[in-house]
């Protein structure tokens, strides 16, 4: 019978223990989709930022953090921001 997977923290690895929401927020902020002024009105602005990101990267524009958007965020990429604040 297959064993149940056990996840371990590997020494020396940069800890990336973030939830998908936290990861998405940091992505949107890092690459310029969520700008500083919008941080105070988080919910509405996050949807706007997701829309902006989806449009910019040619993804279906839903304004929601769906699987396709999350997967795009996890793709290897260039570190230069997409949108400049």
């Amino acid at each position, binding site marked *: 019978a297959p064993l149940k997977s056990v*996840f371990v923290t*590997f020494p020396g690895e*940069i800890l990336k223990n973030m939830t998908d929401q936290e990861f998405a927020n940091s992505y949107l902020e890092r690459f310029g989709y969520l700008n500083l002024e919008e941080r105070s009105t988080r919910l509405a602005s996050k949807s706007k930022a997701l829309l902006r990101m989806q449009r910019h*990267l*040619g993804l279906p524009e839903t304004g929601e953090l769906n699987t396709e958007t999350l997967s795009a965020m996890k793709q290897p*990429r260039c570190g*230069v921001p997409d949108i400049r604040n």
Partner: protein
Amino acid sequence: YQTFTGDLKWDHNDITYRILNYSPDMDPSVIDDAFARAFKVWSEVTPLTFTRLYSGTADIMVSFGKLDHGDPYPFDGKDGLLAHAYPPGEGIQGDAHFDDDEFWTLGTGPAVKTRYGNAEGAMCHFPFLFEGKSYSSCTTEGRSDNLPWCSTTANFDTDKKYGFCPSELLYTFSGNSDGAACVFPFVFLGETYNKCTTEGRSDGYRWCATTSNFDKDKKYGFCPNRDTAVIGGNSEGEPCEFPFTFLGKTYDSCTSEGRGDGKLWCATTSSYDRDQKWGFCPDRGYSLFLVAAHEFGHALGLDHSNIRDALMYPMYSYEEDFHLHQDDIAGIQYLYGPKTGPDPTPPQPTDESPKTPTPPPTPSAETPKTPVTTPDTAVTTSRPIDPSQDACEVNQFDAISEIQGELHLFKDGQYWRVSAQRNGEIKGPFPIADKWPALPATIDTAFEDLLTKKIFFFSGKRFWVYHGQNVLGPRSLEKLGLGSDVDQIVGAIQRGKGKVLLFNGENYWRMDVKAQSIDKGYPRYTDEVFGGVPVDSHDVFLYKGSYYFCRDHFYWQMNSRHQVSRVGYVKYDILKC
């Protein structure tokens, strides 16, 4: 496509780049080639040219680094962020950084260039057959010296073509040992090491001593990664150890067990549970060529595109037969225009070649012989400026010297003056014969004696001395005490009152101006005192307290402590073209 705010771009088309360090993942020559091809992507569709510098400051400084690597944007370990670059400008602007926690390849797995053997440095061919067995990585099988090797064709048994794979037993890179192999064991801070180590470094790069005692000899180099080495983790550079145990279970190959991201890893000792030493297994890696071509796009002024197939799209994807997307072409040509003129051809004799008098240009020589057209526009253009009249069109001057407070630039019987006071305004050209009628058209060197205000001119094996309108000469260089083998003086630097240094290639002499003779103890070697400047400089002069050594259209500026303080363009930095 997008450009950066304000359409940031270089104000010149002859861009320079410098590779500051190398990744251990590929042979330095493969990395050099990947960067050169990445620049070529852009030079093929624009008038831009890219020249590699080996010292000093280049427009685009290229480097590898990990995590915090000296700028405000740290990398993030394997995968995720691959690289970043800055838009054109001074300082860090224009520079490109590559995350060395990535596995850099040509996009399809380890790119292993061989050395020695009989394959003339060809790449390994994986898989290959050796004694009927298939190998997908370099092997030490069949050898007693433990050197990894590979076949460079699919079948060693039939073709017998092979070379040696990267190994610290074969060579190191960078450091100060000219690529010498590691010496094991070696001593570092009193400890003995039997393999490459990251001890003593904060950047995680593996190094070794190239003599048995680093503490004594200080000779070292960086260790190349073997193709079987793990990436990242806490055992960078070590090979997987099979079988290994993990949570009590034995593994004979890389596994993704224990991870939520599906990445394959292995232990580098026989027991992960005991030693906790691990790393990611080599995968296809990221194409350094493709990532570099993208980053250089930023360094030239392109921002991210939202066209998924464009090179400037922010996400990485591997493309086997790379072609620059029309969106990228449109973007870069918006900034720099399309490529004009023919492809480079072997150099032809031009006005740059011999330093001999040339006849004045004739009307037919000034007129472009064939109209310059571009495929896109088919518009005929002509050069509005006569190159023989514009100092900004001169690539290499015969001589440059500060005379009577103004920089004088000599070329083919003419000279220009640049005022240091009046914002660098260029005046001229003026015929040399009008002011110094005794001189020939080609001047190799000129300098003004700070004490007597006499002006010395050198051309070939002769020199002249002007004092106001009075002239002495021509006299032979031998009269100064220079050997008959000295065919010209290419530069002069005033050294205090009454002394001047005269340069010719590897040698320089000190001349006593009053006695008009060379001091004893000369010639001396230029690079012993003026380290870091080209020994084949064709112009050497003193200007605003700094020494300038020129080669082609570049200059190396050196301060009075003999440190190179800047490398730049004569045209843009000195003439302000």
